[in-house]
């Protein structure tokens, strides 16, 4: 605001300016501080309060959930967790284990496959490189959900639906990770280092494994983290591919419970406790691995 007033003021005789800007500057600076930080607190509250609600809700039984203060602790956290673990012979733990299995394998294997491809696109010269890389970028631009039903149709035709392969194999291919890997490879790994390894007699595969890979570890962790979260959060693919409840990841399992809340409101405490338990590891991972997702996001914004 001051800028709008100051600009024309600088053309008018000088005495006006000091008088107008001395005192207001100091107060407007405090006002700006309060305004900026106040808005940031508001924005953060919008992000955090729903999560806090989940924490409080996880401590209540169905009765308390529908009455009483939403932002106060209940007394049933332990009971809720016990019910969660006991429901259907402890199927929730199985769903959680499935999530960890799918996301873990997808992150590590898929991350490594992408890392190799991104490394090759960055460090090697070969025919058809531009065309192949363009196809990777097209892959980035096609929304996942548009290929889920085609994937289901194909998997059904070869009898792969309702197996872990149906949810595992598609998650190993992530074009965006290849793109990230290329950015990381050109940023973290100087070509001279590889050249030196080659002069020392290391072949291209050995120089990748012994020289390239150790230097790309931070990039690999970032890619694996993003893939892990992406797979953990995936809903449509497992929902469509799996019919056997024992194979469900936690997202599909919790959604199944939610669909029963209409008939039986008692299920809402299971849904809330299950959501609470499956969110915690992700939030802890994000808080601890801040360095990695920050670098991933800044690499991802390079066009």
């Amino acid at each position: 605001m001051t800028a709008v007033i100051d600009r024309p003021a600088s053309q008018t005789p000088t005495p006006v300016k000091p008088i107008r800007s001395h005192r207001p500057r100091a107060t407007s600076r405090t006002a700006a501080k309060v305004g900026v930080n106040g808005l940031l607190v508001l924005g953060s509250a919008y992000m955090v309060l729903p999560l806090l609600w989940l924490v409080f809700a996880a401590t209540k039984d169905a009765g308390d959930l529908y009455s009483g203060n939403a932002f106060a602790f209940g007394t049933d956290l332990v009971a809720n967790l016990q019910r969660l673990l006991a429901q259907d012979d402890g199927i929730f733990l199985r769903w959680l284990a499935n999530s960890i299995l799918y996301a873990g394998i997808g992150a590590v294997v898929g991350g490594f496959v992408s890392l190799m491809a991104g490394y090759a696109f960055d460090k090697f010269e070969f025919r058809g490189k531009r065309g192949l890389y363009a196809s990777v970028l097209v892959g980035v631009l096609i929304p996942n959900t548009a290929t889920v039903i085609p994937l289901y149709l194909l998997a059904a035709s070869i009898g792969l639906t309702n197996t872990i392969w149906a949810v595992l194999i598609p998650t190993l291919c992530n074009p965006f990770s290849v793109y990230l890997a290329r950015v990381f490879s050109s940023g973290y790994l100087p070509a001279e280092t590889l050249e030196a390894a080659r002069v020392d007699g290391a072949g291209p595969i050995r120089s990748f494994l012994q020289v390239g890979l150790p230097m790309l570890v931070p990039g690999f962790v970032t890619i694996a983290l993003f893939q892990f979260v992406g797979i953990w959060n995936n809903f449509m693919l497992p929902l469509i591919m799996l019919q056997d409840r024992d194979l469900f990841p936690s997202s599909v399992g919790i959604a199944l419970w939610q669909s029963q809340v209409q008939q039986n409101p008692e299920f809402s405490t299971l849904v809330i406790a299950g959501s609470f338990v499956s969110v915690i590891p992700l939030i802890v991972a994000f808080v601890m691995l801040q360095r990695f997702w920050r670098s991933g996001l800044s690499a991802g914004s390079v066009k």
Partner: protein
Amino acid sequence: MTTQASATRRTRRKTIPGTGGRTASVFLIPFFVLFALTMIAPVIYAIGMSLFAERRSGLGFGGATVEFVGLGNYVEVLSDTTFTDGFGRLAIYCLLYVPTLLAVALVLALLLDSAVAYAKRAFQLLLFLPHAVPGVIAALIWAYLYTPGVSPIVKALESGGIGIDFLSVQLVLPSMVNIAVWEWAGYNVIILFTALQALPREILEAARVDGAGEIRTALSIKTPLVWPALGVALLFTVIGSLQLFTEPKILSSATTAVTSTWVPNMWAYDAAFNRNNLPQAAAASIILALLAGLLSWVVTRFTSKEPTR
């Protein structure tokens, strides 16, 4: 034979030893095999399937015969009003969601970048936190926060004399936009904030010396300079919004305002699993993929016209 051999020799000579196509292929084959299996083959298979239809004999006995119908399924899908209504909703959703998300993210990023902001790292972490929450759970949390009786928001509004049904036919779409903004704003804040931090400080200093205030600098200097990052954010937001499935699918268990064919993805799901019409599900998916490709192309065109790197 000889031409082939000389061709390989020529490519060998052009590149540094050991970095030619043969070595590169060792690194690329795993990814491209997966790419072919999980993206190209399904799409081709779905295109093939979408050109056929099952026809049952008039009496209903004797099983179905499969016959070639050309683009017949596409015509049927596109002339089905439940499908086109879904597309209409998706379009309104995009028009509400994309600008809201980018505006919220840009404002928060500019606030974070402001010289007077405290505790920037802590704010970044708090803003990013919802992104760690799986989409299903985000939708569930908000479904409860929209449900009268459970929701502290509805309760607070009611005590203020305002009765709002977030899950009504009129409001469920904006309610869904809110869920998506909650999930994705922080992610985009970090991207835009990183871009803002990378701006040359001399330019901002020059603006300050010229007498531009914080707000003026933010709007007329910083914002145009982060346009490329905003373009990337726009592209991924548009692609992401076409994926809309999880939130309406979850909300459909909390309100009847969300039907089983509410958006195109749900329509395709319903066609495949409730109506057992796989060819139409395939056709709907192909239509969505084509639209996504077209939109991405438009967005890329549009954003790269502006000042580039």
